[in-house]
């Protein structure tokens, strides 16, 4: 649970620290023209970005808890480490590339280059799908080698962590598909910019989570 606690402590400290800074030194009962002209938005950005950031905090909490559960269960004597298929390295490369290409597409969208959207989205999506397919193939290889989820807790965690990560990727692909449809039906860079920017953040997040999970799986 230490890992989760550290994560949550960081998140809570950020939230509470920020909220306290907003509230220290104020005297809400005094009428105050500075407060009167406050715009009503606490953060200098749009709602969708705030929504996504909040969601990333939720997802972080989820993965931190899985990692905590992993490290606790690992200490029981019956744990026998799983030899991860080498294919995971290839999959990781797909994911890194997907993230890079998404970032490139984002830069083009910000620069207003509508022409780059379609190829950018197409390649980023294809790489992400290859990542998912690769993960499924890795599952197949393990199953073929007789490594079932029920054989050992290490195996079970492998399927669980990769599965949950993959589901998050599927959710991302849903949003990706929506931007793609808009790009193909003639939306220009400005119109899809925000959704591409947010997807880029999400892809980087999924990459980061994958690096942590993969590292954990390899190290134990």
């Amino acid at each position: 649970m230490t890992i989760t606690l550290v994560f949550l402590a960081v998140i809570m400290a950020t939230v509470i620290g920020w909220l306290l800074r907003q509230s220290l030194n104020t005297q809400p009962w005094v009428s105050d023209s500075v407060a009167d002209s406050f715009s009503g938005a606490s953060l200098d950005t749009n709602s969708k970005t705030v929504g996504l950031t909040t969601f990333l905090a939720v997802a972080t909490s989820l993965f931190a808890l899985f990692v905590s559960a992993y490290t606790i269960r690992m200490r029981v004597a019956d744990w026998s480490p799983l030899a991860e298929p080498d294919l995971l390295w290839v999959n990781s490369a797909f994911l890194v590339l997907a993230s890079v290409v998404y970032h490139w597409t984002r830069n083009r969208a910000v620069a207003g280059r509508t022409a780059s959207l379609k190829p950018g989205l197409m390649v980023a999506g294809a790489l992400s799908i290859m990542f998912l397919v690769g993960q499924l193939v890795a599952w197949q290889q393990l199953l073929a080698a007789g490594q079932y989820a029920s054989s050992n807790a290490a195996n079970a965690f492998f399927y669980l962590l990769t599965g949950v990560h993959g589901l998050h990727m599927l959710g991302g692909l849903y949003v990706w598909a929506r931007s793609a449809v808009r790009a193909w039906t003639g939306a220009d860079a400005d119109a899809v910019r925000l959704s591409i920017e947010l997807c880029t953040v999400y892809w980087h997040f999924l990459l980061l989570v994958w690096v942590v999970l993969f590292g954990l799986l390899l190290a134990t």
Partner: protein
Amino acid sequence: MAYVAIADRDHEQHLHDPQTFIEKYIWSQDHKVIAIQYGVTAIFVGVIAMILSVMMRLQLGFPDSFSLINPENYYQFVTMHGMIMVIYLLTALFLGGFGNYLIPLMCGSRDMVFPFMNMLSYWVYLLSVIILLVSLFVPGGATGAGWTLYPPQAISDGTPGESLGIVLMLASLGVFIIAFTMGGLNYVTTVLQARCRGMTLMRMPLSVWGIFVATILGLLAFPALLVSAIMMLLDKLAHTSFFMPAMISAGEQLEHTGGSPILFQHLFWFFGHPEVYIVALPAFGIVSDVLATHARKNIFGYRMMVWAILAIGGLSFIVWAHHMYVSGMNPYFGFFFATTTLIIAVPTALKVYNWVLTLWQGNIHLRVPMLFAIGFIFTFIHGGLTGIFLGNVVIDLPLSDTYFVVAHFHMVMGVSPVLVVFAAIYHWYPKMTGRMFNETLGKWHFWMTLLGTYSIYLPMHYLGFQGVPRRYFAMGNTDFLPESAQALNASITISAIFVALTQLIFFYNMITSLRNGKKADSNPWGATTLEWQTPDTPPKHGNWGHDLPEVHRWAYDYSVPGQEQDFVPQNVPASEVPVGRDHGVHH
């Protein structure tokens, strides 16, 4: 802070005006309709949970007089009652119901920032409720594992509903969490980004603060429940061994090895304790506003109240193992959690003092919502004090799994939040429906409920000291108990039936007043917060007509010295306050 014109921000939300009946009341994206859908659904399942509790009480008060209730059923009733009350009633009602209704109105917004997702949140919640209720009727029945669902027994032979019931329960929880997350992202984002001009964080009413921080807790804590639900489902369906240790059942070695039931307990309570505050913080906030309004006084120590909410929210993540003192943990570990538990009592006690001090020399109007709010102060102090007992390891060990615990948690997180629910429904009923309720019936409802619940739960403390065990269908080998314990149990049951029937008064009042109630003014209590300043009552889609309100003061300008009226609404600028008012007066 960068200045964003209101007009610009409005473009972010596409409010389309619903035309058809279905768009208006069924697939509605209006936060007020969604709030009422959440509220009605939650209260509906709450009534089922209450009926289940009466069934349990019948067995406990008059053992074996009702052939309908056998030990299996009893476990199923305990489990479903507990789970429904905590999650599907209180969490859904405070956040999905009041959160939805109050956040946009109190913050001066037109709606939630993601109305479509908000609508989806309700329908997914309804799905989780349906899955839950279906589990009552599948072969083997609902799970009887206790609301804590501890493995290994939750998914092992001998526990009712260990085949389909538990699977549906876990699935329903998973679906509920998805619904909650969709709603929660909305509440947080709306509070942060969609307030009206002039509504700084420190001008927000405490109701919004309570709901806001509770939502953050929920967003961070529910994943722990999700993780445990997924892993237990896999143990059940895919025969993994996350939680399931090696076991011999009916002489046969089961396929599980090495799983850790304690791991489940950690995950469950990592969610479970914050859950207490997910329910309590909105109640704290709402009660603060109700007290200030009906005492015609500003809330005592507003800033302290906000900081206490934040402190409680933060601390609630490091006390969870006080639910696990009897799990055989390291004594130093227990010492740590006992300490944090007692520390969290400090900000909580501060809040209680501030409520009482708000009443001090107030101009108290004992209207129905106020009665319930004051009732809450009593029951909450009561439950809080027994919590300090149980927070200490040496006292908890003998009392754990006795009726003392049942009495404690019912006072603190059963009765207290429910009293606030009633306070809130009565307080905002005129705004939600445009009608007044019947005051006399409301008062009868209050007194019968308060005295009735005390006569249920006060004696339970005593039974707990005597050693009456919790979650028992029948007393079993408990010769050490005096005969009188049974007499007390019978009287508790009679009180429980009395309280349950009393709620009929409430429903009768709420339903008949919809039609026959006196038409309500837009601001019958003379309250300062924005929801009472809407152009229409009940507010229309979009809440504010053409122009959004602008806020010029905090939410507690009650009885400001030197002014004609005893309240100044938040949207009244200093220049429009009738009598010359010097800035910065000390209220």
